[in-house]
């Protein structure tokens, strides 16, 4: 073994599946001078990789998890460290059968071969199953079992053979050092180990369950908690031993009992996600020496597993007589929102995280991080939901991490609704109107940490006024109310007042602020004080990084307003790109600024009672930003709309908010004004207009031309992604277009009206064919919602150019059934000429 180095370009901490694949991928992308260290021995350093059950079910409702799962499975296959065992998710309840139909829909979306089986068909594949207690199964022949430890070794070897990697096992990290960087930031500088100190330009934390502890050494956070997944190996059993192979029978996931049964040679591994959440602090995990097995194979707590054994025996009687040879409380990583932690830490520059990644996504997510470090943003997929920067400070403490992990562990095999809300850790941030909204019977949805009113029960009378009704099927009705449609129609008829306090409001100031603002944005931002731009921000490859509004509010001041789901990511992006000469000062004004939205044909009549300012469309044109006094309160009026009716975003100081709300509500009394929730703002109003949303329609895999957001001309100033953007424009008509579709008939085979949820439902052509463009991008629903003013179920999604023409007949799959739909076009389904934005 070579001498311990004192310097390296990159130090990767953690040689489990993630760290090992990461060094391999970095070497493929041309990185050199990499050092990989781990406190444990190789090839099994004692983290979660060593005790993983090592199987991959490629179907997931979430795009990142599904596609990176498939991508990872293929990487294991490429190395010949994978066997396709097949796998079956069995249902014991009708609710689960419905979920299996939803799985079929997602399988179609991601192009994964799958079929639904009768109990008898399940029995044919798994002869030792008790088919009498199941209603059916979801069979996926490409479920695979992989050798994660050996795969890690192969990736490390690949990098070592290139001469770009040194590996040091049994080397414990004692500290991660930082130095000051421009703009008051910190940058990682060295890793101190029990074998010496290594100076490094980049450090990657791939420490699995220990990741937060190691990040904390540098003053950074990776919000995850070690959690127990119980597993017992029982056997031997003749029917398994006779196969003379590691795995011959499909893996069975007993979804309703949260258990799986996976053959391991002559034995069966019975794993459970059905016990209480058992969480540990990383400091309480034993060292390699203190552990009887490995540190993450903690002593089995039998009582927690007993109920699982009873249900496992119900499903496979032979398990009852087999001996429990090995049983562990295996540790794995859980995060507050059940998604991984990838990307640069927000606290320390060049300190990266590749954590909360399981074996099933390891190689793919390692590739994501390697590409991110190389190109500034990943190419294989948009890791929007895995981006470590998504977490707000309230989400980074142990109280939050533990509470959320405690709540979602039991949902690992659960049936999770796309709109499902958290029960615990609510009311972390409330707007200034919260008490008023509570009095109005607001149904609050949480946008990361922000409570937002989705609808108001006080508007229940609108349901009758507009002749609305509940949805027929409970699943479609869950987390939804016809009041949303009532609020929508009232806004179109009168006006609605929206609480937009969850907007993330940033300010750039200083001599470099205007230039820097232009550098971030595709569209021209600074056209004088009082001007604004709705603009994409691109990554270097020309895909969307953000989509937001910017306003020039002073000679050298620019305000940036983005959504609650993207505040963390956008703030990190800004800080990462701040000029090193410190000519720009960044401020986060979110907690000192509150925003109200007032829209509808009566908006001008309402507001004009409270101000002398010229509110006419001529005097206060679309996009203008003006400082006015409203009801004696200093406000900034921004004439813009995300719901398709005329009106304003009104910004004022946080403490002024309640008085402003009261004044506007009072002025609106005779104009039909109603408090109106995010159900209208984010879905019905938006989808009728076909307005795109970051993280839904807008992802790094698409560019502004495809999204229909390209302007006729490109500004002269340089901006991030300009070169790629110009190339895409020059390439001519894009291959895919973002379009609105209208569902022609919502009735399913049982005669019930069904309503898509916007959960990646595949959009197929009239012949029922799945549509994938040459970049591998599949046509799927990115947003679904009812358009109350058009009286139809609307969908947004990308389709190949030949299907984008208005009137093209298509089909959408929902719950494994096909529904006919028609392309509206790339514009709006409602008021395509935008006459209402002008109050006409």
């Amino acid at each position, binding site marked *: *073994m070579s001498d311990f180095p004192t310097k390296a370009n990159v130090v990767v901490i953690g040689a489990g599946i993630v760290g090992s694949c990461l060094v391999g991928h970095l070497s493929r992308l041309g990185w050199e001078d990499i050092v990989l260290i781990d406190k444990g021995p190789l090839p099994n350093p004692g983290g979660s990789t060593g005790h993983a059950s090592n199987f991959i079910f490629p179907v997931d409702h979430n795009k990142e998890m599904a596609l990176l799962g498939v991508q990872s499975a293929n990487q294991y296959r490429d190395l010949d460290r994978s066997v396709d065992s097949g796998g079956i998710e069995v249902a014991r309840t009708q609710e689960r059968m419905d979920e299996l139909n939803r799985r079929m829909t997602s399988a179609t979306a991601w192009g994964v071969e799958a079929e639904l089986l009768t109990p008898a068909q399940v029995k044919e594949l798994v002869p030792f199953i008790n088919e009498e207690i199941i209603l059916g199964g979801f069979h996926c022949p490409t479920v695979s079992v992989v050798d994660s430890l050996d795969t890690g070794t192969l990736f490390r070897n690949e990098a070592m053979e290139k001469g770009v990697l040194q590996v040091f096992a049994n080397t414990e990290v004692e500290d991660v050092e930082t130095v000051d960087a421009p703009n008051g930031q910190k940058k990682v500088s060295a890793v101190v180990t029990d074998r010496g100190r290594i100076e490094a330009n980049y450090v990657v934390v791939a420490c699995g369950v220990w990741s937060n502890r190691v990040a904390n050494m540098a003053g950074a956070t990776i919000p995850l908690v070690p959690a127990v997944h119980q597993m017992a190996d*029982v056997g031997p059993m003749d029917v398994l031993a006779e196969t003379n192979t590691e795995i011959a029978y499909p893996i069975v996931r007993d979804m309703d009992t949260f258990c799986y049964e996976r053959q391991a040679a002559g034995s069966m591994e019975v794993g459970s996600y059905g016990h209480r959440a058992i969480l540990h602090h990383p400091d*309480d995990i*034993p*060292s390699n*020496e*203190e*552990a*009887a*097995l490995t540190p993450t194979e*903690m*002593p*089995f707590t*039998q009582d927690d597993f*007993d109920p699982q*054994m*009873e249900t*496992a*025996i119900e499903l496979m009687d032979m*398990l*009852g*007589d*087999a*001996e*429990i*040879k090995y049983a562990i409380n295996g540790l794995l990583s859980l995060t507050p929102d059940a998604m991984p932690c990838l990307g640069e830490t927000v606290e320390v520059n060049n300190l990266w995280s590749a954590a909360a990644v399981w074996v099933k996504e390891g190689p793919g997510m390692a590739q994501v991080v390697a590409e991110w470090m190389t190109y500034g943003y990943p190419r294989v997929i948009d890791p929007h939901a895995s981006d470590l920067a998504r977490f707000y400070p309230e989400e980074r403490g142990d109280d939050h991490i533990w509470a959320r992990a405690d709540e979602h562990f039991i949902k690992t095999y659960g049936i999770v609704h796309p709109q499902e809300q958290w029960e615990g850790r609510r009311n972390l941030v409330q707007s200034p109107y919260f008490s008023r909204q509570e009095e109005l019977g607001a149904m609050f949805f949480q946008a990361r940490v922000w409570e937002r009113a989705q609808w108001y029960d006080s508007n229940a009378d609108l349901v009758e006024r507009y002749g609305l009704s509940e949805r027929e099927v409970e699943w479609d009705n869950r987390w939804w109310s016809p009041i949303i449609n009532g609020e929508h129609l009232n806004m179109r008829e009168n006006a609605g007042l929206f609480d937009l306090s969850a907007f993330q409001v940033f300010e750039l100031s200083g001599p470099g602020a205007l230039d820097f603002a232009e550098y971030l944005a595709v569209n021209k931002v600074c056209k004088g004080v009082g001007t604004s731009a709705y603009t994409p921000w691109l990554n270097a490859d020309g895909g969307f990084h953000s989509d937001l509004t910017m306003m020039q509010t002073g000679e050298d001041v620019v305000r940036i307003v983005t959504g609650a789901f993207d505040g963390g990511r956008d703030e990190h992006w800004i800080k990462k790109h701040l000029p090193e000469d410190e000519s720009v000062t960044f401020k986060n004004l979110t907690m000192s600024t509150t925003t109200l939205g007032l829209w509808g044909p009566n908006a001008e009549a309402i507001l004009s009672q409270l101000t002398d300012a010229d509110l006419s469309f001529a005097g206060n044109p679309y996009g203008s930003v003006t400082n006015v006094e409203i009801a004696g309160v200093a406000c900034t009026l921004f004439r813009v709309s995300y719901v398709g009716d005329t009106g304003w975003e009104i910004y004022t100081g946080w403490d002024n908010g309640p008085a402003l709300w009261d004044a506007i509500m009072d002025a609106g009394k005779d104009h039909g004004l109603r408090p109106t929730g995010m159900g209208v703002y984010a879905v019905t109003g938006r989808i009728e207009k076909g307005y795109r949303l970051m993280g839904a329609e807008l992802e790094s895999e698409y560019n502004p031309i495809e999204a229909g957001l390209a302007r006729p001309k490109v500004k002269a100033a340089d901006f991030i992604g300009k070169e790629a953007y110009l190339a895409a424009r020059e390439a001519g008509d894009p291959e895919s277009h973002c379009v609105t579709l209208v569902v022609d008939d919502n009735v399913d085979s049982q005669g019930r009206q069904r309503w898509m949820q916007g959960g990646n439902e595949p959009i197929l052509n009239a012949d029922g064919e799945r549509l994938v463009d040459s970049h591998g991008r599949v046509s799927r629903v990115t947003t679904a919602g009812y358009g109350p003013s058009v009286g139809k179920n609307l969908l947004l999604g990308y389709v190949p150019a030949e299907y984008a023409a208005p009137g093209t007949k298509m089909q959408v799959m929902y719950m494994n059934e096909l529904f006919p739909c028609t392309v509206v076009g790339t514009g709006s389904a409602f008021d395509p000429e935008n006459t209402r934005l002008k109050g006409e």
Partner: protein
Amino acid sequence: MRILALVKRVPAPGARINITEDEQHVDDKNLGHAISPHEECGVEAAVQLIEQYGGDATVMSMGADVSEEQLRAAVSVGISKMVLVPTNGSPKDPQATASALVAAIRELEEQDGVFDLIIFGNESADQGGFQVGIRVAHELGRAMVNGIKGLEIPDGQDGSGDGHIVARREVDAGFEVYELPLPACVGVKEGINLPRYPTMKGRLASKKAELVSLAVEADADAHANGRQAQTRLKSPPETATETVILGDGVDAAPAVVDLLEELGVL
């Protein structure tokens, strides 16, 4: 035949054992717990004898309430009854332990008859005193042999009544063979058998078994000063081991040969 197997809850072996700061206890925060390995073989021996000759086997432990876990583990592999002699913490003085166990055994025997065989482990995995079994046997006036690696019932007998049992003890040259008149006591050693793992059904059945708690008046004299007491615990110095990699593939062959010569095996 009626058999009693005695077990002790000990920290699961296999990892570095840390001592608490007050030097009085094993720090078990990272450790699971198990039946002392010799006693686990004792439980297996009891189950095998009952399977072959009929009768019933009881498992008994003296310790804190958490020892229930080890009693149920024994039931899960085929023991039919379990008895806990409750104490505060882990008993330290072997004579006090033996006296309490004798009192408990006498009470059990008064209720249901004499145990034909009482099986101890050779020594406990934590304290390793080699004391309790012989003291119990002495007080009960029964024959006792420790270090047993084989148990047999002579042909034509069923291990009860006034029969005897044959016990084999491994020595350097072979085996010592003892004939013990019943009722008798033995201390068994790992290697006498390969203890079975519990089955899932066995484990679930053990959950339903009744735990008999038998508080006994221990001999007051047994607690008097002058008996064995624990002053403090100390970890032995860690033996440093070094792994020397001799080479990779065929290139390593000369170094391997050199080493074998150095060890004198060539």
